[in-house]
């Protein structure tokens, strides 16, 4: 899996960081990047509303409130991904897109190379081959999650602890840039 591009969106859907770490995507104009970010934010919010309900009860708010309550009661580590009911990933022939959302609503979006082509899943006779090909698809999802975790750590270190950064504004920290580059390579 090759990471093409990293976006960070603030909780209102504004693009605060955009970095094409590897060549592979067409360049857009600065305005188009903002539109793209806004669109993804909107699609994410809509998909969160498309959740099934249990006996007419809205489950989305509970799904999003529970991780904090769990952390407080058990004190145990929870998955840092607060993206429980929204858009998780888009897989196409040309690219894959993954969305990670922190509990405070910051969205990290990573665009990667597409899934490796798996030939003839139906016609494979040996069982191990099927398992292997399934693992291949799952692997890129896991890998993306690994990237998100480290990205989140770098973000909380080099952006949140920088006194010259104002919340929800574009990230200009050159230390953050350097660390992102380090993470991807």
């Amino acid at each position: 899996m090759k990471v093409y591009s990293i976006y960070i969106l603030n909780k209102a859907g504004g693009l605060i960081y955009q970095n094409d770490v590897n060549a592979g995507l067409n360049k857009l104009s600065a305005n188009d990047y903002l539109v793209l970010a806004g669109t993804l934010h909107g699609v994410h919010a809509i998909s969160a509303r498309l959740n099934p309900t249990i006996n007419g009860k809205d489950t989305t708010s509970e799904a999003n409130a529970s991780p904090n309550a769990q952390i407080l009661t058990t004190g145990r580590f929870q998955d840092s991904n607060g993206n429980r009911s929204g858009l998780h990933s888009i897989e196409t022939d040309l690219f894959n897109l993954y969305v990670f959302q922190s509990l405070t609503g910051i969205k990290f979006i990573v665009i990667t190379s597409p899934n490796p082509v798996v030939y003839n899943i139906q016609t494979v006779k040996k069982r191990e081959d099927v398992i292997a090909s399934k693992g291949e698809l799952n692997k890129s999802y896991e890998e993306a999650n690994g990237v998100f975790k480290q990205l989140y750590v770098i973000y909380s270190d080099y952006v949140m602890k920088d006194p010259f950064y104002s919340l929800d504004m574009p990230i200009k920290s050159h230390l953050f840039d350097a660390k992102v580059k380090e993470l991807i390579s």
Partner: protein
Amino acid sequence: MSNEDIILPSASSLSTLSISDISRTGFGYNPSVGPASNSITPETSNILLNRKTITLTPTSANSIYDKNINSKKINEISLSSLSFLFCEIVNWSHKNSKGIQDLETRLNGLGYQIGQRFLELNKLREGFKTSKREIRIIEVLQFIHGTFWKSIFGKVANELEKSQDVTNEYMIIDNVPLISKFISIPKDYGNLNCAAFMAGIIEGALDSASFHADVTAHSVPLDGFPLRTVFLIKFDESLMIRESLRFS
């Protein structure tokens, strides 16, 4: 009591504060609603209050004043909380300052008081029998570069150098200053260096050891060490005279 008509009392102590206001959805962000308030709800406050680890009153039995000052145990604090605190210190000083130079002076002043106190504490912990006061410039610099640095930042400073041109100038060099590890200075702030706080610590310690000096922090990045900082120590002229009278 309904949730709307609660007005937070201006209570004298946090323990009398009743916490029961606002959002029921809890903390965090709900993609379909938007950012929820991070305020404490009845549900979460119950959880917070029932846990023994959280004390709302600052006068607890294990405050810093109740501990043995001479303890050999190294008290470590979280780098994250230190960074957040320092972040706010810089913000606060920046808000009050008139310019970049003024901001550096303010940070220096805050560090100065720490340096003064920490020198005493350090000497006290060395023990009455083994402790000695350094009286030569090179000795006191080695002490600051070594023992003193280690007890504050957990590591020895990287280099200690003497200026080639000016006799009363020395340099302590740290490749990654702990305090400004996460801080990147925007371009329009010129040559501001938040390690001025650390320079203040050095200055305070030197001054109370009666080595009067001016200490300033300068960024001198190297490959692989973008935060490398040189602390330029400029001793008072009278000190050089004192040194030459005593030891030559």
